[in-house]
């Protein structure tokens, strides 16, 4: 017998309410297996544009692109006739999305941008609005050795959901951080690598000692010999956080006293910030000395166009500054000389990527406008379009997944109302992994900026 025989009416009503709520709050909608975007003008970036074509998406991947594509019976067909289908653009280098760009300490290779990523930042919403579907968030330039970056989609509730790929690049700055000079900057940087050698040597020695201890033996050799014998004994878990990423930067292979040991980790690349022309040489030097030259991306400041011969010689990919025109005032005459940086870099035949311009410039925030500026000053249209899609994908080593509309790639697509380089075209829809992630018609904040006034409801002046 129950102590409370009467079932209270309010409990019943609550229960009913709860059941009803459960019915309303559906689990996240399962994306349709097949999505077909039909009738659009496709700009695949690789290959010629397709006037009226179809992009077929299967489980988030592009499976077919062309004028004649057989659409499966179960496909959700989205008619995009009269619109332009463009690959999702990639912001290849930004600290936005983090709360602050840099830790006050100069050497922080153990930090990971993913830990400070805030999925709720308006920045990501803006990315969607402007057609950016992948963002490489990496610590800022005010550092010596910054930390690990991460490539994310601008949508998702958690960092794990947003992540496209684990960070493969560390941030290094050759341009001195605020309040320091280049000598200190370079000395700190070199010291970081020397300290790694020292650390590994000691670690090898310790590992050998540990091994002897396990075998209940006493050490009977000098430190040099102990290091030599301990080199092969170093395991991945022995390397601490601070040194792991520096070791990965140097290739992931243990080196003690110039001798190679076991390869413990996957190598990391570096985004090396060169704010001035003189930094390019230093960046190349430090990269070559420490065996990460082949995985180096140079992040350029405006003045670096002066080092275009050096850049051409080293032929590493470059990330261009947000302000594409470099202005220099002659201190004697006051005359201003303007250089359009991307044209010089393009003429040198380098692999380059564009980034959005200053935030407070309405137009330059858009990657499409940055590309349009390149076309204005003589970069061929196809190359300008690549600089905001495929080139950044290549730089991030994600060109198997991102950067163009080709079978096998992620279905990250932007539907423009017209030609992407025409400024009056707007982003109407964004698909990420084949799922509709943004729709202009439902963009509340944008609607507000475009809404009419309320003059009728206000008093009229006498």
């Amino acid at each position, binding site marked *: 017998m129950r102590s409370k025989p009467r079932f209270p009416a309010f409990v019943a009503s609550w229960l009913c309410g709860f059941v009803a709520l459960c019915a309303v709050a559906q689990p996240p909608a399962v994306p349709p297996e097949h999505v077909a975007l039909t009738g659009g003008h496709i700009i695949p970036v690789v290959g010629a544009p397709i006037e009226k074509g179809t992009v077929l998406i299967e489980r988030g991947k592009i499976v077919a692109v062309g004028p004649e594509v057989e659409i499966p019976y179960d496909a959700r067909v989205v008619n995009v006739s009269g619109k332009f289908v463009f690959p999702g653009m990639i912001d290849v280098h930004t600290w936005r999305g983090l709360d602050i760009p840099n830790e006050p300490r100069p050497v922080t290779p153990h930090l990971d941008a993913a830990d400070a990523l805030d999925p709720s930042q308006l920045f990501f919403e803006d990315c969607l609005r402007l057609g950016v579907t992948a963002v490489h968030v990496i610590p800022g330039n005010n550092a010596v050795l910054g930390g690990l970056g991460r490539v994310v989609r601008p949508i998702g509730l958690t960092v794990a959901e947003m992540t496209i790929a684990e960070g493969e690049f560390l941030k290094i700055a050759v341009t001195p951080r605020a309040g320091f000079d280049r000598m200190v900057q370079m000395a700190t940087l070199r010291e970081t690598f020397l300290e790694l050698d020292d650390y590994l040597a000691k670690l090898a020695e310790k590992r050998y000692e540990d091994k002897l201890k396990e075998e209940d033996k006493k050490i009977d050799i000098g430190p040099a010999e102990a290091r030599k014998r301990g080199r092969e004994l170093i395991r991945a878990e022995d390397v601490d956080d601070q040194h792991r990423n520096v070791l990965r930067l140097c290739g992931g292979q243990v080196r003690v006293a110039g001798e190679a040991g076991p390869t413990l980790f996957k190598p990391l690349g570096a985004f090396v910030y060169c704010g001035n022309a003189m930094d390019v040489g230093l960046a190349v030097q430090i990269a070559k000395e420490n065996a990460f030259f082949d995985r180096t991306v140079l992040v350029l400041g405006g003045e670096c166009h002066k080092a275009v011969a050096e850049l051409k010689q080293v032929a590493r990919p470059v990330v261009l500054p947000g302000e594409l025109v470099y202005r220099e005032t002659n201190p004697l005459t006051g005359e201003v000389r303007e250089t359009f940086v991307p044209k010089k870099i393009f003429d040198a035949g380098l692999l380059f990527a564009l980034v959005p311009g200053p935030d407070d410039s309405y137009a330059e925030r858009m990657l499409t406008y940055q590309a349009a500026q390149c076309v204005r000053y003589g970069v061929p249209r196809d190359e300008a379009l690549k600089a905001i899609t495929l080139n950044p994908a290549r730089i991030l080593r994600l060109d198997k997944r991102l950067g163009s509309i080709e079978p096998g790639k992620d279905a990250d697509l932007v539907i423009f109302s017209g030609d992407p380089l*025409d*400024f009056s075209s707007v982003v109407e829809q964004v698909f990420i992994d084949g799922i509709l992630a943004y729709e202009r018609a439902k963009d509340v904040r944008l609607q507000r900026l475009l809404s009419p006034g309320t*003059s009728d409801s*206000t008093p009229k002046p006498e």
Partner: protein
Amino acid sequence: MTSMRFVITAVLGLVLLTFSAAIAVEKGDTEVIVIKARRIHTLNGAPIDGGTVVIRNGRIEAVGRDLAVPEGARVIARPDGVVTPGLIDACCTIDPEIPEEATGWPFEGGQPSLWRWLGEYAAHDHSDPDHVCTPECGGRPVSSADMPLASATLPTFTWTEQSSEVTPHRLVIDSVNLFSNDFARLLKGGVTTVYVSADSSEVIGGRGTILKTGGPLSERVVRRADAVKASLGGDPSDRGLRNFLPPYYGPPPSILTRRPTTRMGVEWVFRKAFYDAQRVQDGREIYGADMPPRQAIPVLLQVLAGEVPLRIQARLQLDIFTALRLTAEFNLKFTLEEATEAYRCLPQLKQAGVPVIFGPLYMTPKGFRSLTDEVSRPRLNSPKQLADAGIEFALTAQELRDEEGLVRQAMLAVQSGLTPEQALRAVTATPAALLGLSDQAGVVAPGAAADLVVWSSEPLDATSRPLVVLINGRVVLEEGN
């Protein structure tokens, strides 16, 4: 002695002759230029495809298809080019003195350290009401009650004209540096004529000027003194609140240098200026700390008589309504400047027949605008709404240049709904009309000044740039083929 004098006169005469000859050659009065392009936006009828413009003596002689090329003419042929009239910014700022809060310290030698300011704050005896403020304690009376430590360490000074709030006798032309690099940047953006407006720190400020952005100095000034500028809303009262001169630069504010610190005060100063002008006209005395200076009275009377145009800068809806109310009181005609919230006053502006010089458009305010709270409700499609309401409007970039300059403002307006024709008109023919230059500028028509821009493609395309710019029939910018 006489021979010496003769020699000097002769040499001088020769020098003068050479100079005048050089000037005649430079002016190129007789040069005939012919421009051939893919399309000509005349702003005076439909665009002409495959058209030709003939320029003689600095003016446009003929526009049309299949015109004969006069003998000896210099032909500028840009087969892909598009010709428009030179753009006109009807509310430009040249070399703006951006307040130091926005850019940093305005003095040479860098900003004094925070510690210096802290020290100066400490040097002031805050408990003593009779303490005389010295340059050593910041040159300004800091009272511990109204100035918390934080703001005392970061002083907010003004460089505003301190003599009066009513200075319509000042001329903007006197402070424009015609050699400024700013003009070259404007030229690169295809802007050939600018109206330089006074800044918004006074309730009734100086008179603006109309200038060409290039060409020989003698022809740069189109009109020395144009409209009187009045400002309503936060700008003049904000500057009144920060009525401090930097150390060593002047006395602290007193009853003799009073400033309005509220909208009510601003409105009062505006109204009092015109009433005082009328009193002087009637032969009566004027008095009070904020009476207009003597030199201002004749200009104010000219404004009242409609002989000098009036411009009012107002951003918010309530300030625009104040402008309409005040001008109705004195039966004044005016042009509205900036007008961020004009979209909230459309019927009223339409009814009053007030033309608007709107702009700039921005997503994030910067420079001056980052310092005011009057920019929290902008609309990207304001130009479109003004056009739909049938209000005469021009677009301006004010102090913005390059990628936010005038032609880009028109491009942004097109993105949010304006047609390219409307947008082009808002930066050429309409501002010309508002400046009283119709038929002289802003159109490609026979008789108009030959201020022309040849663009690499349609002017409002993001991929377009000026290839050739002419002012008064002179090539002032030309890019190699």
